[in-house]
């Protein structure tokens, strides 16, 4: 009986679970083909860091695509903003705590500027942001013209892309060589998730609303807990949670909350589902468009920071094609071209799938030309699966 319910539940949410299954399969394949190197703490830790800036772009792009637009400008925008950060620290001697908010705000403003022709003049976002793509590319070249690559000397800034959260419980006796704070954070997350699901379930029960059968509910909690547990354990076995990944998780948590739980989140999906109906329902479509593009620009700033800090420098080519990587990750993560459908968590998983492919194939020594072909095939496969899954779910 539980099996049957599991089947209908899986069928109903096949797209969501499909991502986890795909990720699992990819991990297993690479673990086998690389004799376990892929799943090593060190590699997973690196993988999460590489995912960082793509995931951040993919999350912003998800909302853009949900409201039926696209933003091609964000790759070079992030490169340009990374360069601004580098210049601000090396030449203007501004402290990190000023530079970072400044870059995020600049990104937000850049997003609003892209949004203006789209929201106010009805110019297709593809064209408006293509103009941005050219402009920011020029701006990046201009910013790095005199010096070429700008090396960033600031330790604190570089730690964002290369450092790990400190282990305040470091000890040689209890679990040496593992990062205790990371474990603790993982544990707290698991407990918090379980408690809040139980609370939501109880509340639904008190209204006599439909809920998952108990065995499935417990199964789901175990599945999620084990998953988080494993990732935490692997990360703790190397240097612990990196700053990059911590920031990405924070962004995911905030965006997930906003999109799922707040009025503005509902408005975003309503605009994506049917802009005219949304407008007549009192949703300010223009405002939503500005906010979504603004958030994208801000995240481009964040991606620029993550990237520059990881390379410890700003380069003339930073951010090249990053927008397309972000778009690909979002589509792998289940965003629909037609608008109105897509989730932040899905796009994070999409970004992880995307970088796992790179990482795994690098470890296997597959050359870059084949890598592109494989990534293309996976993108296509994901979208085909998406369409099929949606039909099945109907």
């Amino acid at each position, binding site marked *: 009986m539980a099996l049957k319910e599991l089947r209908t539940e899986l069928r109903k949410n096949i797209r969501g679970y499909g991502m986890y299954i795909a990720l699992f399969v990819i991990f297993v394949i690479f673990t086998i083909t690389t004799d376990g190197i892929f799943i090593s703490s060190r590699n997973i830790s690196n993988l999460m860091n590489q995912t960082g800036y793509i995931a951040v772009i993919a999350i912003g792009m998800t909302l853009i695509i949900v409201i039926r637009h696209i933003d091609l400008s964000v790759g070079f925008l992030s490169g340009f903003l990374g360069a601004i950060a580098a210049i601000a620290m090396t030449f203007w001697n501004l402290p990190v705590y000023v530079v970072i908010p400044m870059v995020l705000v600049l990104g937000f403003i850049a997003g609003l500027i892209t949004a203006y022709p789209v929201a106010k003049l009805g110019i297709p976002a593809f064209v408006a942001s293509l103009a941005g793509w050219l402009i920011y590319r020029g701006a990046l070249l201009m910013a790095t013209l005199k010096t070429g690559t700008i090396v960033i000397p600031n330790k604190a800034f570089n730690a964002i892309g290369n450092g790990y959260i400190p282990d305040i419980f470091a000890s040689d006796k209890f679990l040496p060589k593992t990062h205790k704070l990371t474990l603790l954070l993982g544990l707290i997350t698991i407990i918090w998730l379980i408690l809040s699901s139980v609370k939501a379930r109880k509340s639904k029960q008190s209204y006599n609303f439909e809920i998952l059968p108990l065995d499935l509910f417990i199964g789901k909690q175990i599945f999620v807990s084990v998953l988080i547990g494993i990732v935490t354990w692997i990360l703790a076995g190397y240097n612990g949670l990196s700053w990059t990944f911590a920031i990405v998780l924070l962004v995911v948590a905030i965006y997930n909350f906003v999109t799922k739980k707040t009025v503005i989140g509902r408005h975003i999906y309503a605009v994506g589902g*049917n802009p005219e109906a949304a407008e007549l329902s*009192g949703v300010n479509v223009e405002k939503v468009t500005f906010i979504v593009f603004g958030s994208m620009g801000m995240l481009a700033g964040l991606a620029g920071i993550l990237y520059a800090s990881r390379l410890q420098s700003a380069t003339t080519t930073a951010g090249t094609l990053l927008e397309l990587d972000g778009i690909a990750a979002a589509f792998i993560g289940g965003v629909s071209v037609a608008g109105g*459908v897509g989730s932040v968590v899905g796009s994070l998983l999409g970004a992880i799938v995307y970088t796992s492919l790179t990482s795994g194939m690098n470890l296997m020594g597959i050359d870059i030309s084949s890598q592109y072909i494989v990534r293309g095939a996976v993108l296509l496969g994901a979208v085909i699966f998406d369409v099929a899954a949606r039909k099945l779910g109907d």
Partner: protein
Amino acid sequence: MKSKKILEMKSITKTFPGVKALDNVTFSVTEGEIHCLVGENGAGKSTLMKVLSGVYPFGEYEGDILFSEEIQKFRGIRDSEKTGIAIIYQELALIPELTVYENIFLGHEIQKNGVLNWNETIKQAGEILIKVGLDINPETKVKELGVGKQQLIEIAKALSRDVKLLILDEPTAALNEDDCDNLLQLLKDLQSQGVTSIMITHKLKEVIRIADMVTVLRDGQTICTLNAGKGEVSENILIKNMVGREINNIYPSRKHEISNEIVLEVKNWTAHNKQYGHNILNNIALNVKKGEIIGIAGLMGAGRTEFARSLFGNPDHYVITGNLYIDGKEKLFKHPETAIEAGLAYVSEDRKKNGLILIQDIKQNITIANLNKIRKKIIIDDNAEIVTAEKYRNALSIKTPSIEQKLNKLSGGNQQKVSLAKWLFVNPEILILDEPTRGIDVGAKYEIYTIMNELVTQGMSIIMISSELPEILGMSDRVYVMSEGQITGEMPTNEATQEKIMHLATN
């Protein structure tokens, strides 16, 4: 004439997750007749026709389809079209950006050696247009035509193929009386040329006027097939079979308690369309009192919808001059958002295009215009949302397995109810209803009218735009008539007659 069965559908069963839409349905049609298919919203009428036309292909349903006395196993619409079945869906399927002739011949273009022959196409399109009684240039773009004309173009499209069986799913729902007349007459003409038709409709008067046979569906089952020739078709018999009980008054009565307080007043209201350079609305003056239902009658294209939208935050960005007073205070709304805040609500006429978010579920659609009410601080309260949705599901008897059903899986009439529920939840002071009962069955209509009466008794005011004169006369306290962007008449309903209104609407 020997009666030969052109179509027999035997023991058709079709299930969707959680819904048995058709349960062992039997349906047969004799060659040359006009056969009406009636039933409540969600009874399975559209689904039955989609099974017939191959939208749900062979294998996705149980049972047999015999067409021209042969078993058919359609894999898609193309297959059924080849055998001479043409279906016109509840939702129009024309491409607005294309011209009339392009739309008519879409999918079977006239070509010579792989090159399209536009001149021949235009000529033939012209001939077909005459057949359906449309006096327009075939080179007009479809988007420039009203719904009534678009509906006729759908038929022209069907006729451009060699059609034996024409299926129309609620073709008259969006039409006014004149256009309805044209369409029904057209069906009669086609009948005399040997075309068999199946028509789904909620307008029982039409059934009585046109049907040779009527089949009633209820909850996915065939209830009966009635023969008009034997005098088995009357409004009462139909209603009883459709709803399962008798309804004596179509329009519930209420105690009229209209105060003298004017809640909405419009003076010298003129709306200019910059794009086309002319006035859409001219010098409109109108007022609504607290607790009153006013009806706005008029023909398609009279500017009634445009007027409603110009009041409701002007999403079309017309240049507006004139004054709008809400509760005596002058207002100008730049966006529907502010109109809603000021106590207005507008149930749009075209639920698919700008009323609903079809890819979202019932509860999300019901709450979207009033999320603040189910918000705790900044978090949307899921439970409050479910409670709200369940409340309206019951109040309007929305037929669905769950309030988490996506709107695109609901029947047309049930979608309309959701659209209405959304605005009832806003609980406005002034409710503008644009064709509120379009596509709604008799039973549900009665429920909606009852709700309207309750609302005005509680002090709400309603502006009802309707193309159905009986509805205008049955529900409103006062009637305004519009024609070509102007108010051409105003009268208390007890002084109004259909003839008077029609006269004002056409002058």
